[in-house]
Structures are given as structure tokens and as C-alpha cells.
């Protein structure tokens, strides 16, 4: 069994494992797309993947570069208009799990993908929220995948693009939101889950070879650890093989178009 894998691969594989065969996923581009398709190609063959482009139950053979790639439509059961996607499918409550990421996250899993600095005079203008504000509140639960860096895991995010657990405790519900919100944050170092009561993100599993110190120094707040912290099982040979083949096919296909 090969133990040569990158932290990014570990993150994607950990995210894939968190998905079940009967999940209906709202998928973003990048790591979430890789994780969802890896799940589909391994333990969750019936998982339903929906992209914001209106492509429902899509089974791409390569990872899309954008959420509107042709591959998504060609392999989908059906493609609906974007208003229908948001009205009947996301808002209609048909998605069990949504994926999000961002430039900044705080200890209650609120996310920022809008600006670094003040909104009117940003230091860095990011692309914007995309579908996140409503994905964050309409999906049954949210998984967040992000590279674990101190400048991303911050005490206070500059802009709340999408609601996580708000100010913690029952603050999410105070916004009239009834869905579970972020239940897992999967990084390249560890897996975090919100504390049952305070909703503060807590490390529940460290990826193989990652120390507590590494997580602490990569996090901008005083990160908490669960009473029992597990070690994430290392990627299996099969997981790595399927993921790498998927990425190789993707690279070849996107290169071809050049």
C-alpha cells in the first residue's frame, strides 16, 4: 500500500469518505468536486451530484474546470434552468450536503469569499460569494474543505459571506435557519467538527503524521481539540489510484483543448 500522498490528497480523500451513498450533494469547483466524484467512483456509486449550472445527477468522467463545463451536462440525468435549480432544488430542500470553502474561516465556520479588508476599500477583492449564502443555509449540512493556513483560519473574518454557526451556540437558529450548517471542516491537516453546544470548531482527527503543534500554529485562534482525537486513516491504495486517475484524465482533457 503506497504511503506517498500529498496533504491535499489526504484532504480530498477524507472529504470523500464523509459522504454516503444516499447523499444528494451540491458541488462546488476544486477540492469539493474531486471529493464528490472520488466518493462516487469508490464507496458511494449512487451519490447524486448537482452543480449550480443546473446539471442534476451528473457523472463526469473528468473534473470540470468550471461549474458550467459541457461534461457536466453530457453526463447528467437532466439539466434545468438556473432559476429552477435555485428555486426547486436548493431552496426546495432536496440537497443533503453542500460543500463550501473560502479565503477566510472563523472558529464558528462562518466563511469569507468576498473581500480581505473593508468592503468599500478592500485590500484584496476576492471573486465573491457565488452560491454560498444560500448553499450555507439550504443544504441539510455543510462540509467545508480548505487548505489549513494561519491567514485563512482567522479569529475574525473580514466579511461574513456565508453563515456558519454565527456567534456560536444557537445563534444560527436565531437567523431563522433550521439546517445543521457546517458539520465537518476537512483540511489538509485535520478534521474539525463543531462542539455540540458551543459550536466552536474542534479537532476530532489528525491526518497521519500531523502534530497538534502544527495545527495550532496553522490556526489563527486558540484551536480546541476533542477529548479523544483520532488519527485519520491514511489513504488506501485504491483511493489514491482512483483519485490520481481522475486527475490524470482531467489534466489530459483540459490540456487537449489547448
Amino acid at each position, binding site marked *: 500500500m503506497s504511503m506517498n500522498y500529498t496533504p491535499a490528497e489526504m484532504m480530498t480523500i477524507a472529504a470523500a469518505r464523509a459522504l454516503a451513498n444516499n447523499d444528494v450533494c451540491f458541488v462546488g469547483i476544486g477540492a469539493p468536486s474531486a471529493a464528490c466524484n472520488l466518493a462516487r467512483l469508490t464507496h458511494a456509486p449512487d451519490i447524486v451530484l448537482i452543480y449550480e449550472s443546473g446539471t442534476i445527477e451528473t457523472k463526469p468522467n473528468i473534473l470540470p474546470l468550471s461549474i458550467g463545463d459541457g461534461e457536466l451536462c453530457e453526463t447528467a440525468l437532466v439539466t434545468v*434552468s438556473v432559476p429552477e435549480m*435555485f428555486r426547486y432544488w436548493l431552496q426546495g430542500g432536496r440537497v443533503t450536503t453542500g460543500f463550501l470553502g473560502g479565503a477566510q474561516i472563523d472558529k464558528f465556520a462562518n466563511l469569507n469569499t468576498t473581500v480581505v479588508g473593508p468592503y468599500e476599500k478592500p485590500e484584496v477583492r476576492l471573486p465573491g*460569494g457565488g452560491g454560498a449564502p444560500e448553499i450555507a443555509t439550504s443544504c441539510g449540512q455543510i462540509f467545508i474543505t480548505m487548505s489549513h493556513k494561519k491567514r485563512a483560519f482567522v479569529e475574525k473574518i473580514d466579511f461574513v459571506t456565508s453563515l456558519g454557526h454565527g456567534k456560536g451556540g444557537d445563534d444560527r437558529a436565531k437567523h431563522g435557519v433550521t439546517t445543521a450548517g457546517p458539520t465537518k471542516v476537512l483540511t489538509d491537516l485535520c478534521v474539525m467538527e463543531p462542539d455540540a453546544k458551543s459550536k466552536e470548531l474542534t479537532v476530532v482527527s489528525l491526518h497521519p503524521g500531523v502534530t497538534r503543534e502544527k495545527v495550532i500554529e496553522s490556526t489563527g485562534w486558540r484551536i480546541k481539540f476533542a477529548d479523544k482525537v483520532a488519527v485519520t486513516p491514511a489513504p488506501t491504495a485504491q483511493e489514491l489510484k482512483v483519485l490520481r486517475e481522475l486527475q490524470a484524465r482531467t489534466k489530459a482533457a483540459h490540456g487537449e483543448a*489547448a
Partner: protein
Amino acid sequence: MAAILSLAQAVEDNLKDGDIVAMEGFTHLIPFAAGHEVIRQGRKRLNLIRMTPDLIYDQMIGMGCAEKVVFFWGGNPGVGSLPRFRDAHENGWPNKITIEEHSHAAMANAFDAGAAGLPFAVFRGYRGAELKRVNPNIKDITCPFTGEKLAAVPALKLDVAIVHAQKADIRGNVLFEGIVGVQKQAVLAAKRSIVTVEEIVDTLEPHLPNAVILPGWTVSAVVHVPGGAHPSYAHGYYKRDNAFYKKWDAISRDRDSFRVWIGEHVLRKDPDAFAVHAKKAA
């Protein structure tokens, strides 16, 4: 009934300086040829609506066509940012632009409400999200039956919609296939509309009763521009030119290289230049 026109004529007849215009297409079917024509005709002070400004608006903004941009995600998908959009917004080059920023759900609902002739859209949105603080076009509305508080945004009411489609027939009836985004909604939310198409056929065969079709009498002008969505793609015709999307980053990052590219590929070209992209994949 739609007039079948040249692209130059269609843009001249239907798009005025200062118009509110949406040039839609969701990754797929983005009307690039029309965007280039707008640049050639030197339109100014446009209020540009698009879910994702994409390269098409980056090009138009860089050439000074825009006064305002309404959007929900301003990047180059899978690549990075839109340098001309950022330069205009942050540095006022070549002119200052204002932005109005929404979520994807909000814009989808606003297009839908515009097509439906409503003044506003209602959706369960923006809960706990900070855009509400900075965008006065997001308000609360209360359900008169349950008391639930929901979000409201104004319907999009456009002067002009410009979209690309696979086919039109000689009466100007237009067929969209694949990822259809909000193209139909944009045309129905607009006073005037231009649809560029890959093909003009006698009749839209086979007869598919529930296809995504706009009757010719809802469209102002239909223009035959094969390849007109390049570097975006047309389902059933040609693929997305992902390499060009990646290349754009370097072209657009620098004001001079951007202007050189526009001079060579837009100002000194005409819509026939797009045909090569249609042929390439045929």
C-alpha cells in the same frame, strides 16, 4: 417576428449608450462575438448585468464600455481573477465603475422575476450573510400567512438582453440546448434582445414539445455568427477553449498587452473571425 440582421446592424439598432444590458450564458453559450461588436461600436456607460462577468465583461470593461457591473462572482473560473474588472473597480482605469453584488440565488431569482413581469423576487436567502449590510437592494419581506421573514430583491428589468444559442429558424424562433442558465429569462426580462446563433435552419426539427425555445416574436434580432460563443462553447458544436481562459490571465493583467490583444483580435476583426472556432471542432 425577429429580424435576421448582421451583427453590426443588430447592435446598432438595439443597444444604446447607458442601457441596462445582460449578456448571458452560463460558462456555455457566452455571446463573445456580440461583446466584441459592442466594443467596436464604442458603447459607453453601460449598466452591465451578468451572473459572472467572465472574460466577456473583462474585455468590455477594459475598453471603457461600463459604468456599473451587477454580478455574483467576478472571477475567471478555475484560473483566477478578472484583471480589467479589478483595475476599473479599484483604480478607475480606464474609467470608474460601480458594482452591485448579489448571491447566485438572488440573481437567478431576479432574472426569473423579471421574466415574470414582477417588480421583485422572494426567496429564502441571505440569512446571516453580510451582503445585506452593503447592498440596499436586498430587503426583508414577511409571509402574510406564516410570518416567516424572507429576502426580496428587485426584479431585473433590462433594456437589452444579448445571448447566443445553437439554432434559429427563418422566422427567428430560437432553440437553446444543454446548460441553459438564465438566457431565456434574460430575453423575456428585456425590452429588446439580440440572439446570435450557430445555425439558421428552415424549421426546428425534430419537434420536441418541451424544448427550450423562444418564439421569434419575443426576440428583436437574430444574427448568424458561427463560433460566436468562443472561447466559451456551444453544446453539440464546439468545446470550451480552456487554454484561452488560462491564457487570458496574462493578456489581461497588463493594460498594454490587453490593448494590443483587443486591437488585434477585436478592433481589426469582424464577426466572421469567429467562424474558425466553429470549424475547428466540426
